[in-house]
């Protein structure tokens, strides 16, 4: 069971909430910045809990929880500039939140009203990608485009320990390396690919794979929001300056299930969960800001209040999300007119019109 990140783990804030120095990495935050980070972590945990609850109440078909990975996601997203594109997997709800994406936008995919449905340009946040690893190549291509545009932009792409075994990730490493593409490969090693432990994916620490491709690899404490932000900032700065790609392995833990359909008690021990609970990404920040006098009980309560409001907003908006109209499935398969879409749309319209008293097909098409 992997709990300890080893001697090469970059850490700036211990699980006990104590700031520590690192020879190569440093980041100093103002009190305001500390409060901002704490609040982001709390909000992300809340939105994740709300979505999980919505799934349990039948409002979502599925949810992929990010509990335990809040620091990795918030820290990495904060390291990017708003103009820089993030390529998520399907679990980067924390990054989406940092980018200003309304969590309700993420729910459509899990509720079954859309396959994604947002414009990546709106918040510089690409669509969720479900086939694991595919997006690493998209990010490299996007970064190659940034190079051609002469833009000094970095690109951040997420994947997990499971996806590290995918051929596309290996190809993305190759393409990024030979092109010096300004991309940061951000691997959230949460120790489990559904039921398969890290040992089923690799014999060496994942960050060491970068050496074989000719670019640096760093392992950072993924539950340490400060260290993640510092390490990813440095990697992005290197990318912007033309230094090429970096692999950042955020050593973290998926505290919940892979998805709401999963039962982790079948493959992992409660002892492991308890060991990781002691490394909770939020508790350490709370310990630090309370002990340092950056935040008091009243402010912490205000944050809890705002988190509750976010939960309420998600609940209300999720339940109000309309099902898509039946023929909308034909509308955006192609950018231009297509005779098969026209034919099948017309047929479905006429078929549905034949049900004069048909509650089954009336109105929206969801659920049949």
């Amino acid at each position, binding site marked *: 069971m992997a709990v300890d990140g080893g001697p090469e783990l970059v850490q700036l804030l211990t699980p006990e909430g104590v700031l520590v120095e690192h020879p190569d990495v440093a980041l100093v935050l103002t009190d305001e910045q500390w409060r901002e980070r704490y609040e982001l972590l709390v909000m992300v945990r809340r939105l994740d809990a709300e979505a999980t609850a919505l799934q349990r109440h039948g409002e979502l078909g599925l949810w992929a929880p990010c509990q335990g990975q809040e620091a990795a996601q918030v820290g990495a997203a904060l390291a990017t500039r708003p103009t820089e594109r993030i390529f998520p997997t399907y679990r980067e709800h924390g990054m989406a939140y940092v980018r200003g994406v309304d969590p309700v936008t993420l729910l459509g995919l899990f509720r079954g009203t859309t*396959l*994604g449905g947002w414009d990546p*340009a709106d918040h510089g946040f690409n669509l969720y990608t479900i086939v694991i690893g*595919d997006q690493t*190549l998209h990010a*490299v291509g996007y970064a190659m*485009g940034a190079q051609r545009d002469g833009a000094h932009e970095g690109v951040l792409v997420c994947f997990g320990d499971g996806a590290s075994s995918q051929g*596309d990730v290996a190809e993305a490493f190759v*393409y990024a390396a030979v092109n010096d593409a300004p991309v940061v490969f951000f691997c959230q090693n949460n120790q489990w690919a559904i039921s398969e432990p890290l040992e089923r994916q690799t014999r060496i620490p994942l960050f060491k794979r970068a050496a074989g491709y000719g670019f640096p690899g760093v392992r950072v404490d993924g539950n340490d929001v400060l260290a993640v932000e510092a390490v990813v900032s440095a990697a992005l700065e290197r990318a912007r300056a033309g230094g090429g790609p970096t692999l950042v392995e955020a050593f973290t833990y998926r505290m919940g299930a892979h998805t709401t359909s999963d039962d982790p008690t079948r493959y992992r021990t409660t002892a492991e969960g308890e060991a990781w609970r002691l490394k909770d990404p939020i508790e350490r920040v709370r310990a630090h800001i309370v002990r340092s006098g950056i935040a008091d009980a009243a402010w912490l309560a205000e944050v809890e209040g705002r988190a509750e409001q976010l939960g309420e907003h998600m609940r209300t908006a999720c339940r109000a999300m309309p099902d898509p109209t039946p023929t909308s499935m034909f509308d955006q398969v192609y950018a231009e007119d297509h*005779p098969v879409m026209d034919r099948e749309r017309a047929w479905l319209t006429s078929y549905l019109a034949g049900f004069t008293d048909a509650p089954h097909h009336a109105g929206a098409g969801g659920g049949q």
Partner: protein
Amino acid sequence: MRRTTRVPAGGSDMAVLTMARAITTGLAMAMREDPKVLVMGEDVGRLGGVFRVTDGLQAEFGEERVIDTPLAESGIIGTAVGLAMRGYAPVCEIQFDGFIFPAFDQITTQVARLHLRSAGTLAMRIVIRVPNGGGIGAVEHHSESPEAYFAHTPGLRIVTPSSPGDAFTMIRQAIVHPDPVLFLEPKRRYWEKAEVDVDAPLPPMADLFRARVVRRGSDATLLCWGPMVRTCLEAAEADTRDLEVIDARSLAPLDLPTIVESVTRTGRLLVVHEAPVTGGLGAEVAASVTEACFYQLEAPVLRVGGFSVPYPPARLEDLYLPDLDRVLEAVDRAMAY
């Protein structure tokens, strides 16, 4: 490096071009017209492609626009997706038909779906060029006709020229089109020459997806595409029956109105393709035409294609590929009903 060959820049009159050169000329023209157009693939730069279709492009447009990629096909298509998201229009070359399968996931899972997944906000303006089909005496995986896999995938468009003139026009239309286009190049016809009007204006986009009746006839219709167009024309010329030949040109979408109109007149349809008949596009055409022309058909729609075996060793390919005799044998059967 030392390359000095220039791609024809477009003169004032007709040029006699091979199909390969016609595509090169179209690519160069598209690249001159739109700085966002990129060419990428294995050996497309310094070498000019194993079939020389991209010959001279890197010399004219530089290594930033004509990219020699690592030898990883999923990487070619996956990075093209990212470039398209960034506003570029990559024209990817898959070196041989049989090498497209490492990229199958990126094509079917990402390229074909991102427009829909993004609620229409992402244009996947990507062209995937594939030297296609058999007949060149190659080793395994160099003679495949994988069109049915992709025609089955919503979100993709598939076109295939059969002549230098069409190749020149269709590659330019495919590059302009906002949807992803698989561009299948009949590799055994690469070296056939014809006059091409390199100054002609680009026809309306809808023409890209139109079939063309290339020979009028009244007894039976031969529907074919790519390399089989010449085969069918030769068969029609050699036969005493009055055979109509249609070049499908677009495989996804199929131009059913043109096919149906023809079958309504002739009453008989044969679909001729190199791919194995089992689950092939011929089956799709047969079903659609039967539905549309049930009362006009004098015979069942017949398929003439590759056998349902892996593409055979080169010494057997003449037997595997439909030829004039195979086509006319099927016409005999159709006429016997």
